[in-house]
């Protein structure tokens, strides 16, 4: 027992050290705002080959922040998650090529428009779809919560097509390219840029006039940030910086270079080795984040689970009832729902932010802890009742009997379940990509958003998970042998 505790505290100590070491230095003089954005929405936002977020929106917000003297912490959450995080107050603003609509005005305050856009329809170049009329009975891909999706849904009955919704743009485009969907609807600026840089789709309609892009904050809040954004935008337009940024991403030379670039990158990156080499830094960061999540969750969930499990075998009815209820609730909730509830739901009720990493840890602690509690309780109950009776008959109090006789036997029964639960915890960290934690799975999504190498990247990610799981299993088996000796 003492050996395990020592080992666990070593791991924990190491983790704390690494974490402190990684703590970013914050300049106290500048106010920091958290700005949510999309994962891929070129040319407005996308990750370049150094995994840095660039694009019109990124350059704009950074230039404005510099002009107005604040710090913008960019959170690439994905469009849908960014909008939800904004409405629950998790982040201060969103800049993600968001079209200003009346519906969105109900919940958000928008800046002066910074880019005019419309919705166009794109199809595969070799197909026979030439316009809206050809869509009858077909399937059309759109992205969750976008103006393109709203537009498509508003005309789908008239033209007789069905819509299918994806969370990321690249999934939308891929679905059209591989023929599952006949067409997609998206913002003209984005699709124009995509077509020019070799996306492999063809635009077949004129842009509808649906309005412009704006920067958003939660309605009635962050007024200071909003006025800074507007005044900064005005200055950038006046001094010509705005025009430069637009030209940088949409000018002929820029798109041609980008096209060449992506063709080149594709040629290099066609091999597994090339892909790993290209994305080495972001993959390593993802692995580190996944391990960090796993280690902290395992420690927290084990402590929580053991406490709740022990509560479940106490002689008090109240304690047992509490334990059963906690297990029932947190084992019954899907992990995904729990994560969204803690990250988005709770803050919109209480008004206080929960950082994504903390929300992730709480989610895993509650869910994995509930499973742990169940088998801790079961393990203790599996010890023959005669053992407790014999201990009590000698005059040993309940607690001492538990510690000296029941738990040592129960733990042996529980060990295989513990190892199993550790592995499940590791795998479940991938679900936390939904709240924008940049762990291994989210890293994979982002890399694919850039290079569209779905099969190869997911294979690499899967192999990395298997390797980490193997290491974790070996480590657990080693601890198990130590305990059984």
């Amino acid at each position: 027992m003492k050996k395990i505790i020592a080992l666990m505290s070593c791991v924990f100590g190491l983790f704390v050290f690494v974490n402190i070491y990684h703590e970013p230095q914050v300049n106290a003089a500048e106010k920091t705002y958290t700005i949510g954005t999309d994962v891929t929405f070129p040319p407005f936002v996308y990750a370049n080959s150094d995994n840095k977020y660039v694009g019109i929106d990124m350059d704009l917000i950074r230039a404005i922040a510099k002009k107005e003297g604040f710090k913008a912490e960019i959170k690439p959450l994905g469009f849908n998650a960014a909008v939800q995080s904004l409405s629950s107050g998790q982040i201060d603003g969103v800049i993600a090529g968001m079209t200003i609509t009346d519906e969105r005005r109900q919940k958000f305050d928008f800046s002066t428009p910074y880019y005019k856009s419309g919705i166009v329809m794109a199809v595969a170049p070799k197909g026979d779809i030439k316009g809206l009329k050809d869509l009858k009975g077909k399937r059309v891909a759109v992205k969750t919560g976008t103006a393109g999706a709203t537009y498509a849904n508003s005309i789908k009955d008239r033209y007789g097509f069905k819509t299918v919704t994806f969370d990321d743009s690249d999934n939308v485009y891929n679905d059209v390219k591989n023929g599952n969907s006949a067409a997609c609807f998206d913002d003209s600026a984005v699709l124009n840029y995509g077509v020019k840089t070799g996306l492999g789709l063809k635009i077949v309609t004129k842009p509808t006039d649906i309005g412009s892009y704006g920067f958003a904050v939660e309605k009635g809040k962050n007024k200071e940030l909003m006025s800074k954004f507007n005044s900064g935008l005005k200055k950038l337009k006046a001094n010509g910086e705005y025009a430069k940024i637009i030209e940088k991403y949409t000018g002929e030379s820029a798109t041609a270079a980008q096209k060449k670039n992506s063709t080149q990158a594709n040629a290099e990156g066609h091999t597994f080795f090339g892909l790993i080499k290209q994305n080495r830094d972001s993959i390593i960061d993802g692995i580190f984040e996944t391990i960090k999540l796993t280690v902290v969750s395992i420690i927290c969930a084990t402590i929580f689970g053991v406490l709740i499990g022990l509560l479940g075998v106490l002689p008090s009815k109240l304690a047992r009832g509490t334990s059963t209820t906690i297990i029932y609730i947190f084992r019954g909730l899907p992990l995904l729902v729990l994560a969204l509830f803690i990250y988005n739901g709770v803050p919109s009720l209480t008004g206080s932010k929960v950082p994504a990493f903390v929300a992730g840890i709480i989610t895993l602690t509650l869910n994995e802890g509930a499973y742990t509690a169940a088998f801790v309780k079961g393990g203790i109950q599996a010890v023959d009742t005669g053992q407790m009776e014999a201990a009590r008959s000698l005059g040993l109090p309940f607690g001492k009997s538990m510690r000296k006789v029941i738990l040592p036997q129960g733990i042996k029964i529980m060990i295989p379940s513990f190892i199993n639960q550790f592995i499940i915890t590791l795998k479940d960290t991938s679900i936390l990509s939904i709240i924008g934690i940049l762990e291994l799975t989210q890293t994979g999504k982002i890399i694919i958003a850039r290079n569209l190498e779905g099969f190869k990247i997911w294979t690499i990610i899967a192999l990395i998970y298997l390797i980490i799981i193997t290491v974790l299993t070996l480590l657990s088996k080693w601890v198990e042998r130590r305990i059984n000796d």
Partner: protein
Amino acid sequence: MKNTKVKVTNLKKNFGSNHVLKGIDFEVAQNEVVVLIGPSGSGKSTLLRCLNRLEDPTSGSVVIDGNDISDSKTNIDQARENIGMVFQHFNLFNNLTVGQNVELAPVELGKLSKSEAVTMAKKLLDTVGLDDKYDAMPQSLSGGQKQRVAIARALAMNPDIMLFDEPTSALDPEMVGDVLEVMKDLAKKGMTMVVVTHEMGFAKEVADRVVFMADGKVMEEGKPEEVFGNPQNERTKTFLQKVINV
């Protein structure tokens, strides 16, 4: 009149709607060996388990050495230190060696230092004929050996009364003798004992008094020669005929 060690008054115990003990009055004197006999389900074991509150009585009282065991205000752990118990299925602590099984309670309860406990454990294991098993794990022992360790473990707390709950029922026949030998020695040394058993030979030889129970009541009690030789109650007669003719 000898000192009364145990006094049970109108003891009732229900398990749900099942009335297992229906008003038992029962006494044990200092240094007395009482053997409880009777058919299965008659409540013998339940009565025994009420004596150290492994079962909570539904009503009535159990007083041992002036302590009301059935009162929830009584410190039951302290009371149990003086009441040794031996179980049908031994219940040795599977995670501890034979020696540790014997030493655990006296050390944990601060009665003995670790080294005193080791000396005491070796001495007790010697008296039950198992001094060579000090370092063995319970799993490696035979049933008879396990039960003798269990007796040594109960004696380690130096109790002044010992409860035996069918101590030989789970044993192979050739093991029974060794365990009964140890119990006889204990009786000779003057230990107060309450024994639930089907070993009629042991009852005849060792018991000061035999209590026959059926249907949750005491049907008949007396010296062994009276109960075995000249039973008064019809139930006792039928029971003894069956048991002794087998």
